[in-house]
């Protein structure tokens, strides 16, 4: 049993990166990860990553925020502490709407940030050693799984012979 090993392929531009991703996926190579200094348009489709489910989280928590805010105000102004304000009825919907709106936005926004942090396992004291300092600046890297047998390195190299790569490392 061999230990897991990876091949990393370096690029200095996003265009050859996208071409390489498409070729590798066509030839059924397993791409473990793609590292880039900024979001690359079309990369999600090329890797066939499914659409993020963050909007669903936003909708659910937004709805929850709306219900909580409306329910709380309705309870306070009719049951817990009824006050006559400006001669309006205790249960007057228009007064509740601005606060309901604000809490909807707050819940949706915060829940989406929280969901993102949890799903991508980011936490305050995280220790992170980048594979290569340059990927935080102007380098793009594809990491290919090469743990099946010893031929992966040569295979990837021949597949990408037509594309401008900086280096291919084992």
């Amino acid at each position, binding site marked *: 049993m061999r230990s897991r090993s990876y091949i990393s392929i370096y690029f200095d531009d996003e265009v050859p990166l996208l071409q390489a991703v498409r070729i590798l996926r066509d030839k059924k190579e397993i791409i473990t990860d793609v590292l880039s200094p900024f979001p690359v*348009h*079309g990369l999600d489709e090329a890797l066939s990553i499914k*659409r993020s489910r963050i*909007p669903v989280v936003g*909708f659910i928590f937004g709805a929850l925020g709306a219900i909580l805010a409306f329910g709380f105000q309705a309870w306070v102004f009719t049951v817990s502490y009824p006050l006559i304000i*400006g*001669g309006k009825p205790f249960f007057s919907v*228009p*007064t509740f*709407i*601005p606060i309901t709106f604000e809490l909807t936005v707050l819940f949706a926004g915060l829940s989406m940030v929280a969901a993102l942090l949890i799903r991508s396992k980011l936490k305050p004291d995280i220790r992170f050693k980048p594979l290569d300092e340059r990927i935080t600046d102007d380098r793009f890297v594809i990491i290919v799984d090469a743990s099946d047998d010893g031929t992966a390195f040569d295979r990837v190299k021949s597949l990408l012979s037509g594309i401008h790569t900086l280096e291919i490392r084992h």
Partner: protein
Amino acid sequence: MDEQFDFKKKYRNILLVLMTGGILVALAVILISQPGASRIWANVLLNNQFFIGLSLGAAFFLAVHRVSQSGWHTLLQRLPEAMTTFLPVAFVLMLLIYFGIHNLYGWTNNNPTDKVIEGKRAWLNIPFFFIRLVIYFAGWIVLTRMMRKNSLSLMTSADLKYHNRKILFAGLFLVFYGITVSASSWDWIMSLDAHWYSTLFGWYVLIGMFVTSLAFITLLIWFLKRLGYLKYIRPDHVHDMAILIFAFSIFWTYQWFAQYELIWYGHLPEETSYYITRLHHFKVIFYINLGVNFLVPFFGLITFNSKQHIGWVAIIAALVLIGHWIDYWLLIMPAAAGDKAGIGLLEISMTLIYGCMFVYIVFRSLSAGPLVVKNDPYILESLNYES
């Protein structure tokens, strides 16, 4: 790429037949049920306002995108440009109001005991009303014609000066439109209730105009795609139209609520009278207005997939279009027609007449030129656009 819309005789005949039918029905209703002069004139005003709104909203759509130098709309810019060609006809139709002005606007009748209106005489008098009307239309017609002509000159020449001029005209239009759309909404709609005023009324009308024209552009895209045109308009472009409808419907609701909330809270008799006539006598329509214009686009277009399919977006757009017609109805009818206000055969047939006329003019000017301006510098960006 060099396709041109063919306004076939078949469509022309359908529109003319529908229009004649509308005229016959409207005449029959007027003769048989005697709806009263104020209701007939209110219908004229309502439809003028609605279809002027479609034209101006389309010009606003173009101007905003050109000033911000956005690329995605480049492929569909000929559709809003065609919609602006209704304005000269609208000018004539708006001048017709002269014959019904005493039926519509209470302030035209002299009543020296009415201190509020006497105080507003400097603005609300008949000569100045028509001077302003001519100024608005002169500016709108000249500027939209210049915008349209200029973008057509990019068909024969690839000179960058035409592109720069496009941005200049758009900027000029935005400044003129921003002022005149507020002023014209005070003149034509708000002065129906001459005692009442709202400081965000112009904004409210502007956003309504923008949403209606977005909906109409979407319907045009849907129709032309069904006929086999506009193959290059992909779901990405539809997605952006849907985003705009979604966002500006919410913004419309924001404006609606901001106006309602302050008047409701303040509880001043001269302000609440506006909502009392509308909410107490037309309760159902009042809530339908809010539901169709807010809940339908909000829940109908909230997910990613719903914005991708032109068929679905077109259904929502059609509902929003009807919704904003109802919104204009609520702005105009209760004040102009009073107890006689209603939605009946008269309203439907009059709107049918105007609608056929509007669609006829839009299609005619659309067929007069190509569907895509081929030398526009942003054309490639629009072709490869990903939303």
